[in-house]
């Protein structure tokens, strides 16, 4: 990364490895990272689950995954009172996958790019949750499930009736305001979900970049250079430690809110 200006450095780190143009552009780095991490999470959970089902006294990885699963199941059970088999699976998937993806932010910021560069890739953004496509895909699935839950619990007629009659009341003059408010309420859910996770991880990544700028372009040993390098190490370590909290907290939020939304969608007004 020698002889780059700060804006070039940041721009370089903000550019996806892209294939295709316009809407049909594929962010290869996001797709490879998220699919690879999904495979990793799936394999890890499968290995752990095999140990849990294989012995009556699981230990190590099996116990840990079982502990996480029971915690997720308890969280879901405290929000949703009904058959929660699928919702537990949904929350478990979202939590484990998002934790895995968010954790990529803790890799040294230039390391993935260097590895990718060795394979001939000019750019490599390692954090799929700092790509709005990554978070929006999950949020849209949640939107579909929310609508599905409403339809399933109220029937097509009941659900459509609620669109025009709630929250203000069933009067022809109020149909338009009801419809508008319901549309805003429904759409705000996936948008806030997607933007919250994206914003948090994007900002976290950006701060890592800004901290990395401190040591950018140091050419010769001097007191000033040493001070900037020291500051970069201290700030980078501090932010990384703090970021562990954000990694888990954002995954937890993205796990709990969909369950809350689905539980709300099944409530009758």
């Amino acid at each position, binding site marked *: 990364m020698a002889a780059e200006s700060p804006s070039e450095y940041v721009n370089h780190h903000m550019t996806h490895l892209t294939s295709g143009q316009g809407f049909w552009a594929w962010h290869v780095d996001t797709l490879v990272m998220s699919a690879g991490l999904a495979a990793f999470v799936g394999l890890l959970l499968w290995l752990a689950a095999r140990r849990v089902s294989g012995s009556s006294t699981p230990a190590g990885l099996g116990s840990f*995954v079982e502990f996480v*699963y029971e915690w997720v199941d308890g969280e879901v059970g405290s929000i949703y009172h009904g058959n929660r088999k699928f919702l537990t699976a949904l929350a*478990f998937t979202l939590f484990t996958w998002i934790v895995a993806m968010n954790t990529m932010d803790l890799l040294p910021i230039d390391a993935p790019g260097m590895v990718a560069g060795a394979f001939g890739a000019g750019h490599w953004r390692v954090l799929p949750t700092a790509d709005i496509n990554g978070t929006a895909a999950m949020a849209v699935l949640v939107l579909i499930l929310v609508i599905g839950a409403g339809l399933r619990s109220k029937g097509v007629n009941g659900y459509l009736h609620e669109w025009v009659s709630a929250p203000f009341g069933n009067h022809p003059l109020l149909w338009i305001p009801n419809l508008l408010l319901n549309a805003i309420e429904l759409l705000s859910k996936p948008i806030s979900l997607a933007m919250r996770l994206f914003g948090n991880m994007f900002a976290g990544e950006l701060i890592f970049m800004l901290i990395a700028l401190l040591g950018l372009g140091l050419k010769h040993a001097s007191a000033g250079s040493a001070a900037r390098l020291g500051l970069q190490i201290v700030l980078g370590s501090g932010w990384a430690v703090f970021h562990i909290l954000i990694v888990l907290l954002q995954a937890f939020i993205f796990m709990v809110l969909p369950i809350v939304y689905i539980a709300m969608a099944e409530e009758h007004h």
Partner: protein
Amino acid sequence: MLAINATFIGQFIVLLVLLWFIYKVVVPMLAGPIEARQRRIAEGLAAADQGQQSLVQAQVKVDTLVHEARERAAHIVDQAQKRANELVEEAKAQASAEGAKLVAAAQQQIELDATRAREELRKSIAGLAVAAASKVLEREIDANTHADLLNKLAAQI
């Protein structure tokens, strides 16, 4: 930077695949053993509860048995005491009856002895009286002739 593009489709498919895998494969593998273990724990706790309960019941039974035994022992001791008292009373009564009999016999003996002594005394007084009279009369009185007289005299004494 905020461009939604085809990446979204790819991400959506990845999510669906992972969700399907976790829902169909991982969760059943986890939930089954966990539920089985929870059921076993619940059964163990229930058994422990039952054991506790039967222990309490046994304790109650033991308490009643001990209480009964104690009551019976007290009853037996009571009866024994009563019987002992009765025996003592009987013995006392027997002893006093025996004593009274002995006293009565002794009194009879004493009376008999006294009568005999009186008889002897009378006889000897009669003799003395005869001797004294013969001295007074200066002649011998035939004891046989004057026996009636002497006997009368002796009876008066």
